[in-house]
């Protein structure tokens, strides 16, 4: 293309004329983003600041962010009270195991609903959406009863077995897509598979591969962005989940959830009068930092992948 001086000058003039407007827009944008970022980060910053404070700092009205006396003592205390290494290991193992099981089952179902037009498939999809809009609290008590006296088709004798406190409720619900928000995962995977070209499978079928072989060898490798999104969501929600944890495991498990809930209790030696003091609050807030830290660490590294792959999943289609 020919370089035209006249055109270039015209565009320069345009640019200069529009500069104040552009500047104003980017100023407004920066203000908006910084304001929102502050609101989002504030709870985290408060906890971080508080974790270095000694108790008198909390009563001191001149102390808001920066403690008068910096102490690291809460970190050592909380590490011990939470039994952190073992609780973290258990929590991480549980979250990874559950996420993998949910990923596996939801991907299968999502693929089945996306690619096979069989009688009743749209009804099944309707059921998936239905499971989403029912508040989990509605099935809380029946679930509790079911796992307390677990029995399917009279397989376990008259009284059934008590599965609460074991991993079985987790395994059973995760493998059958009834875990936390699994309907959403099925929905995401269905949308994702719908967005993949049909020619891939047709080529595989022509070459004589069966439906399952095609699924595992051809479709799964192509679906990695979708799988990553579902895995990350499942992981984060299992990590933070309190509902199923208190329902299935209860208050006595060795996971971060219970460790966090009991940390203040242990810090004041079980004395209920001290449980609502400022000291207990300091310990609790430091404990919350310990709880968030691993997932924040993962997020910092995977954030890019997380956001980009969500954009590519065709969540939207």
């Amino acid at each position, binding site marked *: 293309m020919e370089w035209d001086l006249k055109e270039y000058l015209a565009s320069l003039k345009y640019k200069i004329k529009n500069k104040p407007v552009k500047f104003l827009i980017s100023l407004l*944008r920066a203000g908006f*983003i910084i304001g*929102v*970022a502050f*609101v*989002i*980060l504030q*709870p*985290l910053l*408060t*906890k971080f600041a*508080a974790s270095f404070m000694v108790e008198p700092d*909390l009563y001191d009205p001149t102390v808001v962010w920066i403690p008068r006396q910096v102490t690291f003592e809460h970190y050592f205390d909380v590490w011990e009270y939470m039994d952190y290494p073992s609780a973290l290991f258990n929590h991480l193992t549980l979250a990874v195991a559950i996420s993998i099981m949910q990923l596996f*089952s939801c991907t*299968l*179902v999502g693929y*089945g609903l996306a690619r*096979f*037009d*069989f*009688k009743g498939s749209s009804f*099944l999809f309707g059921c998936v959406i239905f*499971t989403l*809009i*029912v*508040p*989990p609290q*509605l*099935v809380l*008590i*029946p*679930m509790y*009863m*079911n796992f307390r006296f677990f029995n399917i088709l009279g397989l376990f004798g008259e*009284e059934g077995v008590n599965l609460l406190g074991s991993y079985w409720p987790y395994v059973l619900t995760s*493998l*059958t*897509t*009834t875990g936390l*928000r699994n309907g*959403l995962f099925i929905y995401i995977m269905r949308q994702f598979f719908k967005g993949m070209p049909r020619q891939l499978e047709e080529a595989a079928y022509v070459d004589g591969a069966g439906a399952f072989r095609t699924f595992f060898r051809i479709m799964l490798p192509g679906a990695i962005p979708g799988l990553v999104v579902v895995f990350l969501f499942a992981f*984060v*929600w299992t990590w*933070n*989940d309190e*509902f199923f944890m208190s329902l299935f495991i209860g208050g006595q498990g060795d996971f971060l*959830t219970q460790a966090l*809930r009991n940390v203040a209790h242990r810090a004041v030696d079980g004395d209920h009068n001290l449980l609502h003091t*400022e000291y207990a*609050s300091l310990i609790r*807030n430091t404990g*919350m930092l310990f*709880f*968030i830290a691993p997932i*924040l660490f993962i*997020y910092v590294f995977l*954030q890019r992948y997380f*956001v980009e792959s969500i954009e590519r999943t065709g*969540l*939207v289609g």
Partner: protein
Amino acid sequence: MNKLNLSLKQKNTIIGYIFCLPFILGFLFFFIRPFLQAVNFSFNELQVTADGFELHFRGISNYMHILLVHPDFIPSFLETIRDMVVDLPLILSFSFFSALVLNQKFKGQTFSRAIFFLPVIMSAGIILRMEQGDYITEAMQQIEQVDYTFSGAALRNLLLQTRLPEGFLEFVLNAVERIPQIIRASGIQIIVFLAGLQSIPRSIYEAAEVEGATSWENFWLITLPMLSPLILTNIVYTIIDSFISPRNELIDLIRNTAFEGAGFGISMAMAIMYFLTILIMLGVVFKILSGWVFYHE
């Protein structure tokens, strides 16, 4: 399978059902069964015995009880529904606006996105519950509230002089107080809208530019219609998100009634009332929006 001489259609049906088997099993045993039991419990009084539980049929008396006798149900029911009605448009418009901003090209765009999505991993489950009634968190919120009451009072006086309808004013003032909550509840919705924005083909905008459309027209005639199906997705998501929020008073009431208060039957009756209300609300929203939503394909 070819040995059975099945048609392609029959084969597809069988394989489809095999793939969907996990869901079918889970739906039957861990969803529909508890769901029907919940409905059943709501018409009964449940007593835990040594080897299981007994049901005593009570008809609709549980429902009559929560509607006519129970002191807390109706207030917290109305408050939860009102919160949802107020929050829903706010969360949707905030996340829509944020997605538009984050979709622009500017320095620090990736970093800003990372922060906007942070609530997805941070403001959830156990952390939110622990923050409730926590001394430090409450002290922080008090600082926030002092600021808001100050600006709120000034704002209130200013707005009252405009003689706008009072209901609208209440809504605006209420909204101002809720800003932090709204922001922290919008993570996923922003992601969904952002993904939607990126999926709009550039060629449409290019064509519009050739036709001489301004960016104002682009927004109303291209961006908004193309994103309209996602508004439905986000409405559904926002509602299911509110179930797990510990700020949801009604859910707390349902839980407490079950384990400490009037018993399982009453608690289930409350949960079913809540569920039916949400179902009706979703139905109304879909009815209103379905005429307006635009599908590209």
